[in-house]
């Protein structure tokens, strides 16, 4: 049922888009060397820190809530992934399919309620 010829334009599109963006990034670098705009020095190449030298490693540890958000996102993304085929096959599965999904959604609603109650969705 899959028409592969419809995917070939996407592949070509991707190649063209990558080429175009790479040209946009690397052409000005070449042009700058030709025009003489390319004049790096140590101060220019240091990272931005409001006018004084940076004094600690910028890649510091982060709040654990960012991980939690990412994990919750995976769970809900998977839930959405289960919903996709269900949404277009309701005419084939009928009420049993619908009720199954409602049970599934209920299971995850419990999870959401738990996260809510525990304050995992809280940002202060």
């Amino acid at each position: 049922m899959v028409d592969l010829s419809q995917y070939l334009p996407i592949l070509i599109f991707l190649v063209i888009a990558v080429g175009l963006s790479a040209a946009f990034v690397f052409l000005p670098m070449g042009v700058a060397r030709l025009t003489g705009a390319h004049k790096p020095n140590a101060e220019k190449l240091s990272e931005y820190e409001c006018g004084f030298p940076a004094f600690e490693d910028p890649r510091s540890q982060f709040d654990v809530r960012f991980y939690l958000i990412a994990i919750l996102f995976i769970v809900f993304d998977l839930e959405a992934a289960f919903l996709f085929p269900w949404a277009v096959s309701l005419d084939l599965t009928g009420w049993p399919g619908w009720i199954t999904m409602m049970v599934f959604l209920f299971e995850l609603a419990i999870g959401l309620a738990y996260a809510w109650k525990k304050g995992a969705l809280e940002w202060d």
Partner: protein
Amino acid sequence: MLQAFAFYLFAALVIASATFTILARNPVHSVLWLILAFFNAAGLMIIIGAEFIAMLLVIVYVGAVAVLFLFVVMMLDIDFAELRASFMKNFPLGIAIAAVLLAELVLGIGAWQSGGLELGTASGEAAPLLGRSNIESIGALLYGRYLFLFESAGLILLVAMVGAIVLTHREGRAVRGHQDIAKQIARRPGDATVNTRPESGKGVTL
């Protein structure tokens, strides 16, 4: 011809990026190579006609799981010297796991070569082919025949969610500046200000 070309392109890229995932010194580079591997695997899925699986691979693995990996890897202060030391320590274990995987691969291929193994549905018969797009066929099967497997997947997700919250949640963190939006909206000028006309010398009671 074109399909074969695309297959070899994607397959070569999968293997190359998987190799770089292992060889990259910087763990962030490793994750990015892994993402490239996922992406090309999605390309392979499209070639065998599993367009829905291909999209899911990108949405779930590239869009969600790899984001978590990146979060973890970017924010951990990884000490490379220590990593290399533990590499030598864990080397025998790594070899053992590799040997088990290799044995399983050989066994699996051997079993498949010898034939007679019916892979597929639980009852042994192949799933009926529907004249519909493969996303609809998957839906019809998953929510028709494999109801209980699907529900148990839901339970596993629930456990994962609860587990993540239990592991990362820290009790008793001081909540500061909690915002109650309903309370804010319900507030009227009359609640905040009062007009009084104090007699001179008496002052105002608050």
